[in-house]
């Protein structure tokens, strides 16, 4: 148990030993390929577009319904006053 704790502490390192700069490594494998970036960009663009159209459409329909409700209620007002 003690050995495990020691080992874990050693891999984390002391704050004084942490990186103070980043330098490029020659010939390192890329973390993600170009296809991932392309798919991410297209998914993001299309999802945003569809979401924007749908949310605006729903908002317009919601306000239209409330206006209709209100106009119906107003139409009943003269009868009440009579």
């Amino acid at each position, binding site marked *: 148990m003690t050995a495990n704790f020691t080992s874990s502490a050693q891999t984390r390192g002391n704050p004084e030993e942490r990186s103070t700069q980043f330098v490029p490594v020659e010939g390192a494998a890329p973390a993600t390929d170009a296809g991932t970036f*392309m798919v*991410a*960009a297209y998914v993001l663009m299309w999802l*945003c577009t569809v979401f*924007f159209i749908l949310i605006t459409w729903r*908002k317009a329909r919601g306000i239209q319904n409330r206006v209709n409700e*209100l106009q119906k*209620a107003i139409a009943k007002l003269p009868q009440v006053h009579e």
Partner: protein
Amino acid sequence: MTKKDALFYGILAAFTVALLYTIPLIFLYTPTAQLQAGGLAQKIFYFHVPVANGIYVTGAVCFIASAIYLVRPSETANAWARAGSDCAAFFGTLVLCSGPLWAKKAWGVYWTWDPQLTTLLLSVLIYWAICLLRAFAGDGAAERRFAAALGVMGTVNLPIIYISVQKWGGNHPTVIREGGGGMHESMWPAFIMGHVTMTLLLPPLVLWLRSRVALLQATMEHTWQEALTRGMVDHWDEVNPADEALPNAPGNAPGVR
């Protein structure tokens, strides 16, 4: 269905068909560009540039409607100015999301303070500022005039974005502009279809929807004023025997602003 509704559904159908045609055209039939341009990630270009041009279209609508509102205020001019700034912020956000993903592969970084990127960011921030102003500062005459003035100012920056590449250089590609090397002929169909979808069809679609929302909000405001003038709140139980809740006042209704 009115003529306007028919036109809207026509554009929506054309947009859907164009989008469904453009996607396989880009992914399956357009060749991959050289590695220095981003390789496979260069295909982002076929939507990135048309969406960027969408900012010019929606920004122009915002500019014209805002200028008209400043000279002769009307509900219609305000609605289109609002729609223009909302849509320009939307298109600007798409460009700022798609560009860095391509830049990471082509340049090795997500962002650089290139003149064109910086001026674009500035414009998008102005359009977002207009959206926030309209959303949170109320809808009075002063707020509308201030938003319209910002709309004019924001759009004045758009030509600067375009000419910044020629004037100040930077990393941004100039492939199809003056001094650029052009594209291979096999890449043009995807580029043209990208423009048909995202520059010609999408801006009218979202502009029409957003202006409709703004006009309906104004109608809601006027209808509510009429209801208050005629004492509807006092007589609500009499006009509404079904015991439904009182329709929300414009300022209190969630999602109205």
